C-alpha cells in the first residue's frame, strides 16, 4: 500500500514533468553557456587592438605632458607626466618581452624595449630641464621625439596587422556562432521531440489500465457478470480502483448466489408443505369415507356403552367403550401432535377391537422404555402399521398371530419396532414401499386404512429427513417395521409444525 502510494499517478506525472523539465533546462543552459561563451569571445576579439590603442594614446599623453613641462616647467604637467609614465609602464608590463618567431609578439617586444628607452630618455630630458641645461633639454627632447615616432609607427603597424588577424578571427567566430546556434536549435528540437515521446508513452501507461477498467465495466454492464476487472500492477490509484471493483463484483456474485439458494430452498419448502397438506387431506378423506360421522358414531357408542353397563353386560360395555375411545382419538387427534403414549393407547384400543372381532386371534405384547413415552410425534402413525401387519401378515396365515411392539432409545433417536409372525413381506415389495412406489397398489387393495406410503411421507415431512421408516422380512418369519424418531424431534416440531 505504501509502495502504491509512493507511486501514485500524481507522483508519476510529477516525475515525468520534472525529468523533462530538468532535461530541457540542462540542454538550454548548456546551449546558453556555449552561445554566451562564443559571444564573449567575439567581444574580446578586438581587445588587443584596444590595448594597442591605449598604449598609443598613453605614449602620446606622455609626449604632450613632457613637451608642456619642458616648455613651461609647469608642475601640473610634470605631475601628468609622472602619472602617464606610471600608467604606461603598467600597460607595458603586459606586453611580450621574449624573443619569438611570432611577428606580433616580436613587435610587442620591440615596442616594450623602445618604450623603455623612451622612458629613460624622457626622464633624462626632465632631469636636464631641472638642471637648466637648455641645450641638453633640446637634444634629449629631439631624441624622445624620434623614439616616440618609432613607437607610434610600431604600434600602428602591429595594430594594423592584429586588426587584420582579429577581423579574421571575428569572422571565424561569426561562422562558429551561426553553427552553434543552428546546432543548438536542432538539439533542442530533438530533445523536445524525445521528451514529448516520453510523455506520451508514460501517460499512455497511466491511462491504459483506466481504459481496460472502463472496457471491463462496459462488459459487466452488458450482463456478463463473470468478467473480472483487469488488475494492472501499476501501483497507482488505478490498481486500487480495479481491486475495489473486483471486490465489489465478488460480493455481488456472492449475493446473487445466496439469493438463488434462498429462492430454491423456499420453493422446496413450499412444495413440501403442499405435499404434506395433500397427504393429510387424503388421510382425512379416507377417514371421512370410512367413518361417516365419527362424532355421531362416538356419541352413539358412548350411549351404547352406558346401556350395556346398565344392563350388566360388562364385556359389551368394555368393547363399546374401546370403540368409543378409538373414534374419539380419531376425532380429536387427527390434526394435532400426540405423544407416544397416546399413540400406544390407540394401538391398545385397536388391538382390543380386533381381538373382539376376530375372537382373540391376535397375541399382542409390548416392551416399552417408560422414559420415552412423552416424546411427541404425528398422530395416526402406529395404528396403520398395526393394521397393515394384521391385514397382510397375520390374517393370511394359519395359526396364532403375534404382534410385538417395542420402544427403545438409541443414541439420539427413539426406535419403535413392530414385528409380527405373519407371512412376511417380499423383499422387492419392501423395497418399493421404502421408495414409496407401491403404496397405492397396496392401499388400493385394502382401502379401509391409511396407506403405509401416507405414513412414511408424513413422518419424513414431519422430521425433515429420509431415514424414518424401515420395513423388512424377519429371518425368523414375519415382517418387522421400525420407526426412527429423532429425540430432538420436539424442537424441530416447534419450528416447523405450525402448519401441520
Amino acid at each position, binding site marked *: 500500500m505504501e509502495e502504491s502510494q509512493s507511486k501514485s499517478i500524481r507522483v508519476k506525472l510529477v516525475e515525468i514533468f520534472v525529468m523533462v523539465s530538468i532535461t530541457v533546462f540542462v540542454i538550454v543552459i548548456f546551449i546558453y553557456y556555449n552561445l554566451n561563451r562564443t559571444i564573449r*569571445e567575439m567581444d574580446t576579439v578586438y581587445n588587443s587592438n584596444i590595448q594597442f590603442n591605449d598604449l598609443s594614446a598613453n605614449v602620446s599623453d606622455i609626449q604632450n605632458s613632457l613637451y608642456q613641462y619642458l616648455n613651461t616647467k609647469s608642475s601640473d604637467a610634470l605631475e601628468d607626466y609622472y602619472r602617464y609614465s606610471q600608467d604606461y609602464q603598467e600597460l607595458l608590463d603586459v606586453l611580450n618581452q621574449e624573443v*619569438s618567431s*611570432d611577428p606580433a609578439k616580436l613587435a610587442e617586444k620591440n615596442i616594450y624595449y*623602445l618604450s623603455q628607452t623612451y622612458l629613460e630618455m624622457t626622464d633624462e630630458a626632465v632631469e636636464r630641464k631641472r638642471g637648466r641645461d637648455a641645450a641638453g633639454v633640446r637634444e634629449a627632447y629631439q631624441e624622445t621625439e624620434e623614439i616616440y615616432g618609432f613607437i607610434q609607427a610600431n604600434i600602428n603597424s602591429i595594430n594594423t596587422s592584429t586588426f587584420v588577424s582579429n577581423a579574421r578571427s571575428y569572422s571565424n567566430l561569426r561562422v562558429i556562432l551561426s553553427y552553434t546556434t543552428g546546432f543548438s536549435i536542432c538539439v533542442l528540437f530533438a530533445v523536445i521531440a524525445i521528451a514529448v515521446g516520453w510523455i506520451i508513452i508514460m501517460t499512455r501507461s497511466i491511462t491504459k489500465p483506466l481504459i481496460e477498467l472502463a472496457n471491463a465495466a462496459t462488459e459487466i454492464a452488458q450482463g456478463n457478470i463473470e468478467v473480472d476487472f483487469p488488475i494492472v500492477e501499476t501501483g497507482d490509484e488505478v490498481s486500487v480502483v480495479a481491486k475495489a471493483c473486483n471486490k465489489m463484483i465478488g460480493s455481488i456474485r456472492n449475493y446473487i448466489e445466496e439469493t438463488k439458494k434462498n429462492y430454491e430452498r423456499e420453493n422446496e419448502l413450499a412444495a413440501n408443505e403442499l405435499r404434506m397438506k395433500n397427504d393429510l387431506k387424503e388421510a382425512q378423506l379416507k377417514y371421512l369415507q370410512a367413518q361417516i360421522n365419527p362424532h355421531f358414531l362416538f356419541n352413539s357408542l358412548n350411549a351404547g356403552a352406558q346401556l350395556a353397563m346398565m344392563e350388566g353386560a360388562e364385556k359389551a360395555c368394555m368393547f363399546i367403550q374401546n370403540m368409543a375411545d378409538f373414534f374419539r382419538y380419531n376425532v380429536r387427534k387427527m390434526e394435532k401432535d400426540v405423544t407416544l403414549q397416546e399413540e400406544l393407547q390407540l394401538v391398545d384400543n385397536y388391538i382390543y377391537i380386533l381381538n373382539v372381532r376376530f375372537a382373540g386371534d391376535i397375541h399382542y405384547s409390548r416392551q416399552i422404555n417408560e422414559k420415552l413415552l412423552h416424546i411427541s410425534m404425528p398422530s395416526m402413525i402406529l395404528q396403520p402399521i398395526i393394521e397393515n401387519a394384521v391385514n397382510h401378515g397375520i390374517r393370511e396365515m394359519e395359526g396364532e398371530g403375534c404382534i410385538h411392539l417395542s420402544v427403545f432409545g438409541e443414541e439420539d433417536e427413539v426406535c419403535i419396532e413392530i414385528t409380527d409372525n405373519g407371512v412376511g413381506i417380499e423383499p422387492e415389495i419392501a423395497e418399493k414401499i421404502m421408495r414409496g412406489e407401491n403404496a397405492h397398489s397396496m392401499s388400493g387393495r385394502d382401502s379401509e386404512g391409511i396407506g403405509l406410503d401416507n405414513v412414511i411421507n408424513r413422518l419424513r415431512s414431519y422430521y425433515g429427513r429420509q431415514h424414518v421408516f424401515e420395513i423388512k422380512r424377519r429371518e425368523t418369519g414375519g415382517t418387522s417395521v421400525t420407526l426412527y424418531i429423532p429425540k430432538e424431534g420436539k424442537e424441530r416440531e416447534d419450528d416447523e409444525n405450525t402448519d401441520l
Partner: protein
Amino acid sequence: MKRFMDDNRLMYIVMAATVLLVLSIMIGFSVSLDQDKSGSDEAGGEEGSYSYHVAMVGGDPSDVFWESLYEEARTAGAKVGIYAEDFGAALNEDYSTSELVRMAIDSRVDGIVIETDATEDIESLISQAEQAGIPVVTLMEDVPDSGRISYVGANDYTLGEMYGQEVLKAVEKDGASVDVLVPVNEEESSPSFIYTGISETVAQTSRDISVSTVRTGEDREFVSEERVRGILLDEENRPDVLVCLNVVDTISAYQCVRDYNLVGKVKIIGYYSSPEILEGIQKGVIQSTIMVNAQEAGRLCMEAMEEYLSQRYTSEYFPVSVELINEKNVEDYIQEESGE
C-alpha cells in the same frame, strides 16, 4: 509492480542516456570548434625557443637577393637560437636604413646585421650600437673603421675583377664605352671597390675602353627604370656595355633593351639571378650575371652573430662565394635551382 518498475527504470535509463548523448555531442561540437579556432589563431608562425633577437636591416624587401638571403639567415639562425627579424618590414611606414638601425638600437635587440652603403651616418650608428653593447655585422658592404664585429660579403675587388673580365669579353671594338650602374647615393664616402676592380682590370689590357659610373642610389624607389631608360635612349652617349650591380637595375636594363629593341647594341652584365635575369641570359639579351651566393651570405651572418654572442669573439671577415652565370651554364643553374 515489478514489470512496471522495470519499464519505468528503462525509460529513465533511456532518457538519461539520451541526455548524456546530446551533451557529449554538444561538448564534442564545441571542442572541435575550439580546436578550429585555436588552429586558426596559431597560424602565426612556427614556434621555437630563441635566446637572441637579431635585427637585419638593409635591402629592399622586394629584392630577390635580399629575400633569399634573409630566408636563409632566418633558417640558419633558428638552428642556433637566434631569431633574425627583417627589421622594418612589418612597419607600415618606410624608414631609411639609418633610421631603422637607430630603431633597432632603441629596441635593444641582441644584434644587428646591416647591408647598406658605408656612410658616416652609418658609421656613427654602428659605434652607438657598440656602446649600447649591440654587436653589428656588416653585410656585402663593409664599414671597416666602425666598431662592427665582422663583415660578411664577397671581396668587392675580386668581384670588380670578375666584372672587368666580363666587360672585356663583351667589348668587341676599341673606343667602346662602359657604364657601371652603382646603386649608391651621391654622398657615398668610399669609392666602390667593385668599380675600382672593373676599371683596373680594363686598364691593364691597354685597350681604349672608357668606363664611367652612374649612381642609381638616389631616391631608392622607382627611379632605376627611368635612369636606365635615360642612359640607353641617349644615342650620343649610349654605352656599349652596361654593368649592373644590383638586381633591380639588371631587370630594368633587360626590360629596357627589349622594349627599345637594343638587343645586340647594348650588352648587359647583370647581378645575381632572378627568373627574369635567367630568361634574359637564355635569350642572349643579358651576357652574363655575377651571382653572389645569397644563401651562403645569410648563413654566414648568423654564424658570425652566433659566434660573437656566445664567445664574444668572431672572425673579422667571412667571404661569400661568387659565381658567374652565362649562356653556357645557365641551363645547369636553372636545373640546379629547380632541383633544390
